[in-house]
């Protein structure tokens, strides 16, 4: 995003709409910190800039990646449109009753970096990718974050992406149940090295609908799930067993 200083009247109506506090008033003019801006476009949609000073400039690679991840109204390029094509682009449990992406004995690991409210540089995602690879995790196919990996053996992102900042992104992978503890231990070790937060989700097929096979692993590690969860209710047809 950019703000045209000539036409900005300094009303400040855009300041509070910024999801990452990148807009501020300086000398009675709104100003965007381009380094902090994640190109989510919320200011443009919500602030209704009275003079049109607030504008979306043309974004090129790699900065455009900020917008693909952060603006839920902006579609990814056709070749990276795996699910809805919007936002972080992960399917996790949503359609697993149709797609059988996660099978019995497998656990999905969803590392949602920058959420809530901190934003993240993609270098944090790279660190998480490398960590999960050490746990023999299989990176999700058809995931925007996986598609940005340039060196799959070393878990390195494509050139120029590391210092791009996004509102959030999801590193999605899966491990077999017997490797879950190792993966969680490694995530515990790497978490303090990040300069952001992540919300951690684990995806599992349920046994007989109501028994979680990951519960014994979590109990052994002294980890607790939050009281709320997200469930695929098994209403898809044909139902994958």
């Amino acid at each position, binding site marked *: 995003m950019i703000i045209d200083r000539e036409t900005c009247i300094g009303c400040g109506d855009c300041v509070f709409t910024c999801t990452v506090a990148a807009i501020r008033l300086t000398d009675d003019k709104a100003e965007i910190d381009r380094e902090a801006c994640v190109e989510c476009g919320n200011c443009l949609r919500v602030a209704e800039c009275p003079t049109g000073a607030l504008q979306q400039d043309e974004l090129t690679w790699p900065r455009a990646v900020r917008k693909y991840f952060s603006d*839920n109204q902006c579609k990814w390029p056709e070749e990276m449109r795996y699910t809805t094509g919007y936002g972080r682009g992960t399917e996790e449990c949503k359609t697993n009753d*149709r797609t059988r992406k996660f099978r019995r004995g497998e656990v999905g690991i969803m590392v949602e970096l920058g959420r809530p409210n901190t934003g993240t540089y993609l270098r944090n995602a790279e660190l998480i990718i490398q960590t999960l690879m050490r746990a023999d995790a299989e990176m999700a196919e058809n995931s925007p974050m996986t598609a940005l990996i340039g060196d799959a053996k070393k878990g390195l992102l494509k050139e120029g992406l590391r210092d791009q900042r996004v509102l959030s992104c999801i590193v999605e992978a899966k491990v077999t149940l017997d490797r879950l503890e190792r993966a969680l231990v490694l995530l515990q070790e790497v978490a303090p090295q990040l300069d952001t937060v992540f919300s*951690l*989700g684990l995806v599992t097929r*349920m046994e007989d609908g109501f028994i979680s096979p990951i519960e014994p692993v979590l109990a052994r590690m002294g*980890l607790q799930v939050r009281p709320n969860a997200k*469930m695929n209710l098994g209403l898809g047809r044909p139902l994958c067993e």
Partner: protein
Amino acid sequence: MSHSAHRFATPEELKRDYVIFVRPAKGFDDVDEKTKQETLRKTKELADIVYKHEPANIGRSGAGSTAQGDDYLQIMNRVTLNGFMSVVTDKEKAFNILKEFKQKDAGLSVVASGLTEDLFDICKGVGLKPHTVLFSLGIWGKKELLPGDDHLKITTLCGHSMISPSMIDHYVSRIKKGEITAEEAGKKMAKSCPCGIFNVPRTVEVLKKMAGQ
């Protein structure tokens, strides 16, 4: 919308926040024109069931949401294979909607987020067995960067993080000055979250508390 598993609140507050959404599967429900038309029809039928039960919000990415004042029929007239999102604020409504979904047997994937215990109760009552669950292990990493709990109770209601702590502070300040009501502020905030997953009644509760009302 992975974040609906991470909505931050006390268990008591979560009793007023149940997310229900319908999600066509890419590569399955869009394979040819006939299938696409069937998917659109089924999506509309399931959305009509939810709408009949007066949800706190219903909407679709790119098409708008009722909580921000958009017209339901116009939202559903938008041709998109992204399904829809909705929120209800009590367990009974969630139960009744899912009961009708089961009877309809439309064959599209349905996802619900909320208190695990309550959702399991509902499923048992309706005769559903959760197929796959995303459990939240909470927030990890540099937690000193996080805003306060009241802020998180609102910001995590938007799956794409479009509602910022500074937006909350802005409206709380205006509510305190009597320039706007908490209900009006909640509706304005819903504009930032156009998918239909934002729970305005819960937001209003938190805004009132923050404004000392």
